[in-house]
């Protein structure tokens, strides 16, 4: 979970930086789309990300099932909130499933019309045109903002949790790691959401 999660954090960071280019230079963004396209390295990368995502999802279900069994059939009659326990940390599976639903919409809106289309021998759609059409639509923009909020929730817990899982947390770095996780997840989300807002409201 931690290793596949870490790889996806790097992918998201890379994705967010690429998307940000579209605000500053349309031609620059088109060049990135063309550079990736259906070239072998982009296809290998896509397969790699899909494999990591599948591993992450399968492990999430296996571990959640094991945890459910460990809790047993008798449940507490009263459950109170404990200090320092975030809602996101207790609901990572549900948040993750919402992220997957949003991902399906995102793949249809962009990947299917770009890389997949090119792999099928058709002319791929223009990346910048797709951005303008998708985020120019209020319904899609609202869906993306909600989706990105859930991505933020997933990342805000996931990044610090992966550091804990691989054993990089310690007494000195505990608060720093939590802060880095929050800043990094906010940064990734803000970069992604700024593109939605730019083409929805400002553009």
């Amino acid at each position: 979970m931690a290793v596949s999660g870490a790889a996806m954090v790097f992918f998201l960071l890379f994705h967010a930086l690429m998307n940000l280019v579209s605000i500053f230079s349309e031609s620059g963004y088109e060049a990135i789309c063309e550079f990736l396209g259906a070239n072998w390295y982009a296809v290998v990368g896509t397969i790699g990300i899909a494999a990591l995502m599948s591993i992450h999802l399968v492990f999430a279900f296996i571990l959640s099932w094991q945890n459910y069994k460990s809790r047993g059939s008798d449940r507490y009659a009263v459950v109170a909130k404990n200090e320092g326990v975030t809602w996101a940390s207790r609901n990572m599976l549900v948040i993750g499933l919402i992220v997957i639903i949003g991902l399906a919409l995102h793949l249809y809106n962009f990947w299917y019309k770009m890389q997949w289309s090119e792999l099928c021998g058709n002319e791929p759609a223009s990346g910048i045109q797709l951005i303008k059409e998708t985020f120019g639509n209020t319904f899609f923009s609202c869906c993306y903002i909600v989706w990105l909020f859930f991505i933020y929730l997933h990342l805000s817990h996931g990044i610090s949790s992966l550091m804990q899982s691989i054993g990089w947390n310690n007494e000195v770095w505990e608060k720093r790691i939590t802060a880095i996780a929050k800043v990094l997840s906010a940064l990734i989300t803000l970069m992604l959401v700024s593109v939605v807002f730019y083409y929805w409201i400002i553009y």
Partner: protein
Amino acid sequence: MNFTLKIWRQHNADSKGGFETYKVEDIPPEASFLEMLDILNEGIVRKGGDPVAFEHDCREGICGCCGLYINGHPHGGFKGTTTCQLCMRKFKNGETIVVEPWRAKPFPVIKDLMVDRSALDKIIQAGGYVSCHTGGVPDANAVLVSKHDADLAMDAASCIGCGACVAACKNASAMLFVGAKISQLELLPQGRIETEERVKKMVAKMDELGFGNCSDTRACQAVCPKKIKVTNIARMNRNYLWAKLKGKH
């Protein structure tokens, strides 16, 4: 002080339990939670009833026997406090208090509020020890230990094995307990030698006994009466990964 108690009653592990309501009156504010239960039981016994079974021993927060789930929190939810150290003045007069046993598959109910926590002992038996030759007492300065490491080891060693971490964790994970027990030995030179073997054996036993996985909610740290930190889990994970990578047993 007067209270209404909703207490989980269960005859044995196989029978079906349920809540029973009791009224307790004239409880001194300075009485501990266990003393309040003693007063309740005196009343029940006087009427010829079956007293509420609950575990207790030292009653000064050291032994880890008194584990009750009070109003949705292990040990009542007051920071750094075990059930036996919890005074009734912490509650409001006339309050309804819900008392349940620890609920986790590896902790089956024995009777009422008593659960079988021997699973934690089995984890210790699997590797929570130091093997050494006995002999004369070495000089105090023969094995040097830094103050930093000694403090961390001492903090980890303060775990009383009450199982509140398991009770609070939504996954019934015992990783805070196991992490603390591994840390207290691993941080000192005498225990460090067997770290790799120890961590593999204790984690394997923990999994075998049916405890869940850590999803880092940190509920265990929030409720621990000895304020054991989740950094002990990270230390255990670090040791476990290293031991697995080396592959030595």
